C-alpha cells in the first residue's frame, strides 16, 4: 500500500518537465556546473535507480556527493531540497509540530461541539433548537474555509482586537501565547468541520433511535439519557469514527488555506511554497506523508471498529 503510494507520487512528480539541477544552479551557470550538480544529486541515474536510492534513503540514510561538497542525510531521509539547500527531513520536522497542534486542537474542538450538538438536535428533533442548529450548520457547512478564516481574522483581530494576530511559539515555551496564537485557526477549522459532524451525528442518531433495541432499552425502563448515550450513540458511532479518522488525517497533511490566513508555518504552507518553487523533493515528501497519515488513520479506524462493534472482532 505505502509502497504503491510512494511509487506513484514519485513518478507523478518526476514526470514534471523541470530540471532541478539547473534550477538549483543559479543565474550564472555553466553547463559543466549543471552536469556536476546533476551527478551530485544522482539525477543522471536511470529513473528506477533514482527511485530505489530515494526509498533506500528513507530507511538507511544517504550521502550526496563526495569530498568538500559532501552532504550526509540522516534516517529517515526524504531527499535534499535543491532550492533551499537543506534536507527535506529537517524542513518537515521543523513544521510538523505546528500542523499536529493545529489538527489536534481543531479536531478536539469540532468533535466535542459537533457530536454534542448533533445528539441534542436529534434528541429534540423538530424543536426550535433543532431547526436553528440545522440552519446554522447548513451555512457553516457551505462556507469555504478562507471566508470563515478571513471573517474571524477581521472581526476578532482587526476590528475588536480581542486576540492578537497569531504569532506562533511552541507550547513548551509559553503555553498562553501558544494558545492565543492557535485559538483562531482552531476555531476556523472547527466551524467548518463541526457543522458537518453535527449533521452526521444527528442523522446517525435519528437512524439508530428507530432501531428495535432502542425500544427494548426503553422497555427496560432505562432513563432516556442512558438510552441515548449508551444505546443509541454507541450504535451510531461507526460512521462518525470513519469520517473523523479520515478528516483528521487530511488535516495532518496540512491545512493550506487556514495556515496561510493565520501565517502559520505548517505542512500546508511548506507544500504551497514547494509548489511555487517547483521544489520537487519537498513536494514528494509532503504528499507521501499525507498519504501515510491517511493509511495509518484507516488502520486506526479499523481497529476502533472492532472495539466498538463486537461483530467485527475475530474469534
Amino acid at each position: 500500500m505505502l509502497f504503491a503510494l510512494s511509487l506513484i507520487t514519485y513518478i507523478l512528480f518526476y514526470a514534471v518537465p523541470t530540471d532541478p539541477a539547473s534550477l538549483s544552479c543559479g543565474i550564472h551557470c555553466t553547463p559543466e556546473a549543471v552536469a556536476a550538480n546533476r551527478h551530485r544529486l544522482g539525477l543522471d541515474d536511470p529513473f528506477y535507480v533514482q527511485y530505489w536510492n530515494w526509498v533506500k534513503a528513507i530507511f538507511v540514510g544517504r550521502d550526496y556527493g563526495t569530498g568538500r561538497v559532501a552532504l550526509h542525510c540522516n534516517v529517515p531521509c526524504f531527499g535534499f531540497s535543491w532550492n533551499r539547500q537543506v534536507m527535506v527531513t529537517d524542513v518537515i520536522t521543523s513544521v510538523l509540530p505546528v500542523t499536529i497542534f493545529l489538527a489536534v486542537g481543531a479536531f478536539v474542538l469540532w468533535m466535542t461541539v459537533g457530536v454534542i450538538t448533533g445528539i441534542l438536535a436529534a434528541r429534540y428533533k423538530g424543536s426550535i433548537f433543532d431547526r436553528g442548529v440545522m440552519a446554522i450548520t447548513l451555512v457553516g457547512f457551505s462556507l469555504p474555509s478562507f471566508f470563515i478564516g478571513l471573517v474571524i481574522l477581521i472581526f476578532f483581530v482587526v476590528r475588536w482586537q480581542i486576540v492578537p494576530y497569531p504569532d506562533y511559539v511552541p507550547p513548551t515555551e509559553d503555553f498562553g501565547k501558544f494558545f492565543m496564537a492557535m485559538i483562531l485557526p482552531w476555531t476556523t477549522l472547527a466551524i467548518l468541520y463541526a457543522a458537518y459532524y453535527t449533521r452526521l451525528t444527528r442523522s446517525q442518531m435519528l437512524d439508530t433511535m428507530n432501531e428495535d433495541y432502542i425500544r427494548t432499552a426503553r422497555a427496560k425502563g432505562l432513563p432516556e439519557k442512558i438510552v441515548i448515550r449508551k444505546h443509541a450513540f454507541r450504535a451510531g458511532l461507526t460512521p462518525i469514527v470513519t469520517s473523523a479518522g479520515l478528516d483528521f488525517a487530511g488535516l495532518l497533511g496540512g491545512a493550506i488555506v487556514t495556515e496561510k490566513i493565520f501565517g502559520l508555518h505548517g505542512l500546508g504552507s511548506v507544500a504551497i511554497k514547494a509548489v511555487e518553487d517547483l521544489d520537487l523533493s519537498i513536494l514528494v515528501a509532503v504528499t507521501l506523508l499525507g498519504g501515510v497519515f491517511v493509511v495509518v488513520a484507516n488502520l486506526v479506524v479499523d481497529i476502533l471498529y472492532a472495539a466498538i462493534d463486537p461483530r467485527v472482532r475475530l474469534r
Partner: protein
Amino acid sequence: MSDLTTEGKSVTSQKNVMVPSTHQGEVILSVNDLSVSFKTHDGLVQAVSHLSYEVRRGQTLAIVGESGSGKSVSSLAVMGLLNSDNANITGEVHFDDKELIGSSADTVRQLRGLKMAMIFQDPLSALHPYYSIGKQLVEAVTAHQNVSKEAARARALEMLNRVGIPSAEKRIDDFPHQLSGGMRQRVMIAMALINDPELLIADEPTTALDVTVQAQIIELLRDLQKEFGTAIVIITHDLGVVADVADDVIVMYGGAAAEQGPVREIFYQPEMPYTWGLLASIPKAGDEGQLDPIPGTPPSLIHLPKGCVFAPRCAFRSQVPDNACATTRPDFEITGPNHAARCHLTTEQRQTIRLDRKIGK
C-alpha cells in the same frame, strides 16, 4: 363516546363494553376505551379505537389479528412506548394503582421493566448488538434496583439458568449474534422477567422463530407464568399459539375489538364472521384441498368504512336487513357471560350459519 347520527341512525356508535373474564385473580391491568391515532401526511391514522380489556393475575390474554389491526400499537400505548410527539392517545390505562395515560413520562418509565415488561418479535434486532447479554441483563436490574454489579450479575445468571440457557455462566458474556434465535428469545424473556413484573406483554414472541423452537418458547412462558403468577398479554396472529396458552382472546380488526371471549368459546362458538374466517383459514393436518382464506384486504386505517369495518369482506352482510352493515357500525355487544362480538347478525342467524358451515366443530 362519539355518536354521529345520520338519518336517525348511529354511524359510529361505540358502546364501551368491558367483558368480564372467566379468570378470578386480582385485576392487574385495566384498559378502558383506549384509542390511538397518528397524524401522518396522508391523514389521521386511527390505529386503535375504543379498546377495553382487563388482565388478571395469572391470566393469559391473547390479542389476535392481522398486521395493522392495532394489536401491537395498543400494547405499546399501554407500555408508554409510543412517541408522544405524533401519537394521540385517549382513554384509560389503569395499572399498579395509577392512571398511566396522562401520567408523566418518568412515572411510566419507572414502571417499565420493573412492574410491566415487554418482549418483542425479533430478538436479534431487539437486543443491542454491541453489548454482551450479561451487560444488558445487568442493566435491566440496576435500572430499578439499587444493587451492586455483582448482585445484579448473579441475578442475571440465575435468570439465564431459569429460562434454560445451557452453561449460562459461559454464555453470559456472549454477544447476541453468537446465540441462536431461540436462545436470544430466551434471553429476552429472562430480561423481561428479571425484576419479577406483574405484567408481561409478549408481542409476537414466536413469529421469528422455528416451529420447534416456537413450541419451546411457549412452553417456557407457560411454566414461568405458573411459577410467578405473571399476567400475560400475548399478541399474535398464530391461532395455534392462542389455543396453547390463552385463557381469553380478543380478536381485533381494523383497530377495534371484533370479538372477545374465553378461548374455548372463541374456537367452538365464535360469534363474528371475521373470527369464522380466521378459524377457517387455519391449515389442518390431514386436510386435503385448499386453504379457505378471507377474501379482500384489511381496511385502511385512514379511511375506515362507515358501517361495519369488516362488511366489505363479509360473506353474510346480505343476511342483514336494510344494508345496515354498510351504514351502521355495530356495537360491541355481550353475547354470553364472558363473550362479546361486534356484528349485526342475530343470534339465530349465527347459530344457523355455524351449523351449516360446520364452524367451531
